[in-house]
């Protein structure tokens, strides 16, 4: 018998995720680890970690990590890359970190065309603090700080991150993927690979927004949560490649 699946070598030995049951973070981190293995990047990787559920990345991935304050992972990654341009540098952030408190840092890193890769986990809420309204909370969504649902009067509108990042001239690749089904997980890995490659090729900023479930704060079973990703998130956040300078989608 041939082994067709094993735990990626870039995962720490004896790691055990501390995420809630059914949380898609675990899948996203596995995809990153598999790519670090396949692209032989682990030994030259420096990761800029973020604040929120994503904060414990260094407990799981067996790579060098530096922790950035909330929202500043792209700034810190810029510093790492400018200091050591031969390293592979990526950030792993939530939507609150990347697109709310850190929107300026994220956008300007894209505008500068910094050769780093950024991953933004979009689960439409602040998970770590218990499910508050975030920059990606969809209209009508009930959270602990939007108990009557998100509306224009009190909260305004959610941000479509992948589209916004694609508008930046320094962006080499921007895509939105999801983890709700196996085909989507496979596509997500291809998108992450592309976002890593554009960095290695020196083409600019590589970005992937990953639609993710948060069963705990959505008060749903993991199965129901994946249905919500499809039915409530995808109409607002359509999957797709929004920019890819290596194909005709570049300009």
């Amino acid at each position, binding site marked *: 018998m*041939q082994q*067709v*699946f094993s*735990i990626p070598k870039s995962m720490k030995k004896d790691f055990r*995720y501390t995420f809630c*049951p059914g949380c898609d*973070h675990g*899948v996203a981190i596995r995809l990153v680890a598999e790519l670090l293995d396949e692209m032989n990047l682990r030994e030259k990787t420096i990761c800029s970690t973020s604040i929120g559920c994503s904060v414990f990345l260094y407990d799981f991935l067996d790579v060098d990590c530096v922790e950035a304050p909330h929202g500043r992972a792209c700034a810190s990654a810029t510093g790492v890359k400018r200091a050591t341009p031969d390293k592979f540098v990526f950030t792993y952030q939530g939507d609150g970190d990347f697109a709310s408190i850190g929107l300026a840092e994220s956008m300007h890193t894209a505008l500068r065309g910094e050769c780093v890769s950024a991953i933004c986990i979009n689960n439409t809420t602040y998970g770590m603090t218990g499910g508050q309204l975030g920059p990606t909370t969809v209209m009508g969504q009930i959270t602990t700080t939007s108990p009557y649902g998100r509306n224009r009067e009190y909260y305004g509108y959610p941000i479509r991150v992948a589209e916004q990042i694609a508008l930046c001239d320094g962006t080499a690749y921007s895509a939105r993927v999801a983890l709700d089904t196996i085909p989507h997980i496979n596509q997500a890995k291809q998108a992450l690979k592309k976002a890593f490659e554009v960095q290695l090729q020196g083409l600019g900023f590589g970005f992937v927004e990953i639609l993710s479930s948060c069963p705990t704060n959505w008060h749903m079973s*993991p199965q129901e949560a994946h249905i919500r990703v499809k039915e409530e998130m995808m109409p607002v956040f359509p999957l797709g490649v929004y920019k890819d300078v290596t194909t005709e989608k570049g300009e």
Partner: protein
Amino acid sequence: MGKIVIDANRCKSCYLCVSTCPKGLIKKSDKTNRLGDYLVEFDDKNNECIGCAMCAKRCPDMAITAVYK
């Protein structure tokens, strides 16, 4: 013919694998973990597993640590 290996210490009983297996070979177990959640078990009496590894790709906790084909 295929085979999977489940690490009970990593399983958090989300049961995403149960609904993912195209052959329905993963079931809720009678055994529980520390939290009292029922774990999952691989039940392949008729050697139906095709080694597609969809369960492992789906598992958010990498509790399915190996898949053989």
